[in-house]
């Protein structure tokens, strides 16, 4: 069975062990400015996006800045 990963509150099949794999599978350009990622409540800095951080079962948040007060 494909390992699953929870991204922004929804379950997805694990697309790869690296954050860049995950972003590309979601159609998000990893070079895009302003994107930030947390894995299990800890920020994964951009420099670590090419490291093998994901095994399946993680809770991932992918965010960007938008209009706010």
């Amino acid at each position, binding site marked *: 069975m494909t390992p699953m990963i929870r991204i922004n509150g929804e379950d997805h099949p694990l697309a790869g062990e690296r954050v860049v794999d995950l972003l590309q599978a979601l159609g998000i350009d990893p070079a895009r400015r*302003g*994107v930030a990622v947390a894995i299990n*409540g800890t920020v994964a800095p*951009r420099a670590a996006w090419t490291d093998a951080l994901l095994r399946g079962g993680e809770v991932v948040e992918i965010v*960007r800045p938008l209009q*706010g007060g």
Partner: protein
Amino acid sequence: MPQDLAATDDDALTIAGQRLGSRLLIGTAGYPNQQIMLDAVAASGAEIVTAAIRRIDMTGASETLLDLLGNRYRFLPNTAGCATVKDAVLTAQLGREALGTGWVKLELIGDRETLYPDVEQLLQAAAALVADGFTVLPYCNDDPVTCRKLADLGCAAVMPLGSFIGSGGGIRNPATIELICARSPVPVILDAGIGTASDAALAMELGCAGVLLNSAVAKAHAPVRMAAAMRQAVAAGRAARLAGRIPKRDHGEPSSPQLGLIGA
């Protein structure tokens, strides 16, 4: 230049050692459209703009706030809507990563209806973020004790509310805001409740170091015009504060000379 103006030559607001180009901080949410937002922010003269940190829209890559404003303004990411220390701290950390700034407008909402801060959690989150190296600007109650505690924890400024967020209610407790300003060891920025230009001027006259507003401009009939009005109001209020208002009197005091009246 007249002597009493010389003191205002360099009257920049400095927070955490950073000299800012304006005492008005402005939000970027709720404008009729993107162009009006950009024009209003420009008209406000603000150097700092606030931003929210939210889950990315996976249905399509929209233009980010960073693309629109990134090269011209200093971002102040917020933790708006967060109701727990954990969420607020992670949101602040994500904002730092997303925007490359260690500054955060810390909000910890304790009540969905009034958007009043949860003071207990606010203090915990402020302590955690200061320890993590953040420059923390907390949105807080107009309460001198809470403001002092936040400053003691190492917050770079305190941002008491004038009235409920988005209410346009103005400054409900001017005497309290004045007291907070008089006692605070860090800059006091009036955040929330500003409805129109006179509210912003009053905040500055009471001794606030700056004003942070959003809805009063974004929801105005003519946002760009209101942004310009706010810029002038903050400048006028600051100038009046430095000039020193006359004491209030219960009775009249003639300004014209009493001697030399005709007919006597």
